[in-house]
């Protein structure tokens, strides 16, 4: 009896037949999420190298702390080190599964914490080609999904699927995602703008496994196909389970963040 129930459960979770592309897409997204659950917290250093069509480059450096929250989006704290004039500025984000994220910015020059009272977070992050929504915690509920086909990317078998942002303030109509079949991690994402033209291509490079389970890319390269600008985002010094607590992610903690 128990066995039968288990089989039924498995079948309802992964129905082998009559699965619509939407269901299959959602199932894959859930599996991606499931495999990336339980890491607890991490800290890392992040840098962004911005380039424009004219060949000018500029570097942004920051430190990221993140805390996994059960049944809601993660909490994250970004402290800026470079450019120098925004050193010590810190951005606190509570991402949510359904409602808009909450964000606060600490301005050291003003010694004040300001809530970012805007629903529009689709603009460029620090002048880069990443929007905040590209970097934010990718909760399953933030999109609807559709499986396209099984495919290959650089010789690796992948699921190719589309996802559609739920928020009407998103800058995209859809994203095309290549997900590694073996590891359930994104390898490449294409972003389509409001008129459904290809806007940006994000490639993940140098995946490494932490805690024998969680995959993180060393590099994320975002190429804007419309303006010719690009941003190379590099992660360094990942530290998992370093004992971050809820109290490290409060408005008051922002001021201490530097």
């Amino acid at each position: 009896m128990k066995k039968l129930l288990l089989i039924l459960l498995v079948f309802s979770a992964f129905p082998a037949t009559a699965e619509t592309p939407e269901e299959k897409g959602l199932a894959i997204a859930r599996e991606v999420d499931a495999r990336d659950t339980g890491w607890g917290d991490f800290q890392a250093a992040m840098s962004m190298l911005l380039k424009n069509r004219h060949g000018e480059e500029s570097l942004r450096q920051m430190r990221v702390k993140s805390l996994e929250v059960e049944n809601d989006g993660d909490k994250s704290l970004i402290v800026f080190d470079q450019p120098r004039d925004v050193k010590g500025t810190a951005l606190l984000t509570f991402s949510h599964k359904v409602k808009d994220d909450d964000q606060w910015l600490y301005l050291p020059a003003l010694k004040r914490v300001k809530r970012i009272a805007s629903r529009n977070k689709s603009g460029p992050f620090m002048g880069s080609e990443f929007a905040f929504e590209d970097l934010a915690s990718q909760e399953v509920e933030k999109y609807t999904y559709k499986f396209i086909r099984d495919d290959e990317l650089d010789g690796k078998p992948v699921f190719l699927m589309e996802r559609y942002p739920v928020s009407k303030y998103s800058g995209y109509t859809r994203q095309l995602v290549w997900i590694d079949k073996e590891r359930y991690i994104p390898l490449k994402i294409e972003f389509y703008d409001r008129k459904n033209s290809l806007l940006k291509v994000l490639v993940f490079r140098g995946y490494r496994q932490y805690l024998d389970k969680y995959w993180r890319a060393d590099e994320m390269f975002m190429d804007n196909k419309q303006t010719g600008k690009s941003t190379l985002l590099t992660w360094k010094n990942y530290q998992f389970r370093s004992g971050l607590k809820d109290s490290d992610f409060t408005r008051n903690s922002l001021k201490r963040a530097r």
Partner: protein
Amino acid sequence: MSNRFFRWILRYRWLVVMGSILLIALAASGARFLGFSNDYRMFFSEENPQLQAFEAMQNTYTKTDNVLFVISPKDGNVFTPKTLETVEWLTKEAWQIPYSLRVDSISNYQHTEAEEDDLLVADLVEDAMGLSPGQLEKIRRVALNEPLLRNRLISPDGAHTGINVTVQLPGKKLDEVPEVAAFAENLAKRAMEHNPDVEVRVTGLVMMNATFPRMSQQDMQTLYPLMLLIILVTMAFMLHSISGVLVSMLVLLMSVVATLGLTGWLGIQMSPPTTTAPVMVMTLAVADCIHIISLFLQGLRKGESREEAMMESLRLNLGPVFLTSITTAIGFLSLNFSDAPPFRDLGNMAAMGVMVAWALSMTFLPAALMILPVRPGERHTRGQGSMEKLGEFVIRQRKPLFWGMTAFILLLISQVPQNRLNDEFIKYFSEEVPFRVDTDFAVDHLTGIYLLEFSLPAVGEGKITDPEYLRHVDAFANWLRTQPEVLHVNTYTDIMKRLNKNLHGDDPAWYKLPDNPELAAQYLLLYEFSLPFGLDLNNQINVKKSATKLTASLKSISSESLLALERRAEAWLQANTPDYMHVQAASPSLMFADIGHRNIRAMLKGTTVALVVISLILMVALRSFRIGLLSLIPNLVPIGMAFGLWGIFVGQVGLALSVVSGMTMGIVVDDTVHFLSKYLRARREQGLGSEDAVRYAFHTVGTPLLVTTIVLMLGFGVLALSDFELNAGMGLLTAITIGLALLADFLYLPPLLMQFGETKK
């Protein structure tokens, strides 16, 4: 040698006719590669420094190719729920325009205000239909007082509002521009269906680009048939021979299709200026045909056989027709000195066409006339009597004519400086063109189309929030605003002031530049985190945050005023800012403003080279150094006179007219060649004195010269009907020059010859 060749042509007439048609068809098949250029940048060579400066600026920030919608509610008030709803609707739909990068309107303008201790960033207008009168009043107040919007996206009286769409064309396909333009025009139409109480007009650089091929095609549809008709009538009048007219028309058509085909093979794109090439080729080819056929008909009337008459005509015309063709081609080739590629193309196309026409009139034309039935007719050349009278008059009055003409010529030439250089690109389109109408409307009621853009560098990376830098940029913006030509200045310092106010609880006393660089940088960061997709500051701040772009929108002013303003602005920067801020402006308007200068300088060289080459050819052909030298006068003088006349009656010259001197040089030479060759033949072969030689020249070539001149004037005059003012001006001035050239050949050259033409024995 040439005799044997022509005998061969006449004997194997069918072979020659078929062979020519085959070759022309082969050349013409290149026409399938023809495309219509639709980018205003076509007028600038890659070496053009202003183009380079502008492209560098575009690569640093964002492209500024745009579509501008102008919305005018019929009740004259933008701030009603219904009109604002239309603005919201059109703003949203405009994101669907192909290749659009950003859309700016008063509705998605990111209004900032303090909300308790926080910074609220939101669309200025949201859900317009539900707005209360109080909210509408607030929106009105904000929009009309916001320096970023006033005179740019909202007229100060609140009667017109704009939606500016920035477009980044990938530049991979030729149909990108028409695709965007068609979408925008359709969107404007849909907006008026959406709300019949507003009028929507469309302008912007993309619309201008889309208008170029439309102008070309319109010119082709109207000017080409008209030109053919004019030629048909003239030929019928001159030749009185159906076969002669038919064969001539075939020569013209074959020359034109071959020209277009070769253009396609060479990969040259059609542009409004090159659209005139076929008209020019037809016009110039007429003369070849008329000369050969009329002599042939004369021979027939004398009772010669067809072959004999044709052989004689070819023998007599071989030299002059080749000489006039080659000099014309050289004149056109001088256009390669131009800095504007479309005019180089025009020169090469016309030169090819002229040479094709020459080849056809030496092969296809005689062969075809051997095949078709020809009746000699019983006519004398019209007007010979009056020509002889004119000749007598000139000989009798040579002294007064010489001094009178000299005075007249000097008078006209002294008026050349009356011409002012002007290349306002909006005025390249006549007031009949819808793009011009809508653009003029936008300029009259909303904002300027002419821009000056400055990329103002700070002292280093991240230094755009430096108080000193902010102060200098702000002072520069304020100085620009006091200039009478300036309608609007877009500068990021206004955003900084506003943020400073917002972050001090919206206290108006804090509407000033932050004096702490960290504070300013952090304001900016906070603001940037709040901006939606497509409305970021990357279009005015570079990635290093080491420079910002300041844009001044100007009234419709002449190129001279624009350049003067640019010089004043640069001088102001030199005098009032640190060294690192001493930059030059860049913008399409500036590129056009200087294009006249650049081209006149370039064409001066081109014309000189053409003049030297043509004069050398004349000296060799006429076998006289002295006469060759003398020919310089009637060749040069008409161009000076024409520009003088233009100075008196029009007074504005620019890009198109800069090429006229080189182009007409090769054409006006023809008249001189015909007159001088007859004069010299009379002197050398018949041993006549200079008076009798002049008499002989008038008698033999007076009428043909008059007729070909009339055809040329009509042909280039047809171009004056173009709605593309570059073509119209070029055609008109060329026609005037050709007319004046005949005047010089009839009234000035003979007295000169009688005065200076005698070699001392």
